[in-house]
């Protein structure tokens, strides 16, 4: 059984987040660190430190920000990562040939297609 860290949201803790177990991702020692600080405060400290992996090598393709986003904590991602806008058209593939829609300065808005 896997458990989720309530601080960094790492979802593969081998032990429950209690009894002095330490999260390999954010280094929280449960029953110790979280007696002095709330989980939210510990998360903020981890994020302020750029959310590094704590123990050994992280899982392949691990990313702390997608870990938070998937756990519904997108608002905890630093705000400088959030000022993103999508622009222009996209690319279509048909009949084995790559076709690009014409590019526009603005989003194409809404396009409807039927299968």
């Amino acid at each position, binding site marked *: 059984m896997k458990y989720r860290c309530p601080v960094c949201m790492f979802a593969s803790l081998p032990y429950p987040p209690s009894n002095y177990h330490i999260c390999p991702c954010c280094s929280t020692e449960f029953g110790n660190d979280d007696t002095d600080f709330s989980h939210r405060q510990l998360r903020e400290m981890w994020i302020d430190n750029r959310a590094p992996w704590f123990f050994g090598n992280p899982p392949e*393709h691990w990313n702390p*920000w997608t870990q938070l986003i998937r756990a519904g904590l997108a608002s905890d*991602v630093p705000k400088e990562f959030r000022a*993103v*806008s999508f*622009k222009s058209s*996209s*690319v279509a593939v048909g*009949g084995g040939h790559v076709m690009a829609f014409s590019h526009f300065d603005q989003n194409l808005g809404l396009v409807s297609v039927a*299968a």
Partner: protein
Amino acid sequence: MLTPYVCVACEKVIAAKDDVASLIGLFSRLIVTVPVEIEIPPNAATPKEWAVFSIWFVEPGDEHGEYMLCTQILYPDKSQFGEITKIRIKIEPNKRSQMTMQFNGFPIGQIGEYIVRTWVEENQQRVFGPIEFGLGLEIVRQEIAQTPVKASSDST
């Protein structure tokens, strides 16, 4: 054999009951606006929802196969972002298959062209593809205007 009819990136897909999909905000590039003094770390990801929408031609007999649609996102330096996403392709006879691969974040740690690579697997063997398209990412540096500090009047 499944063959691609369309494959696009967009902000949102709304699927109606009559198999008409509305694609909102087709895009080919992203612009990240950050203050001049802020460094974006290489592993940064933005919490933005987007999707890869595709339609596939189906041939008679394809409905008996168990096909998986696989999507991989590559950084401009060709390293992989996140896991490869796999979803089962629903196939009905004589009907094109529509697939929406939903993502809730996009990597922003490198400037340049990200690659969205898609292929079809059957029994964990690639049977079609990959097909791929690029999504460019730019970072715009913005000076933050200083708000003038109002001088306080001393009332004493």
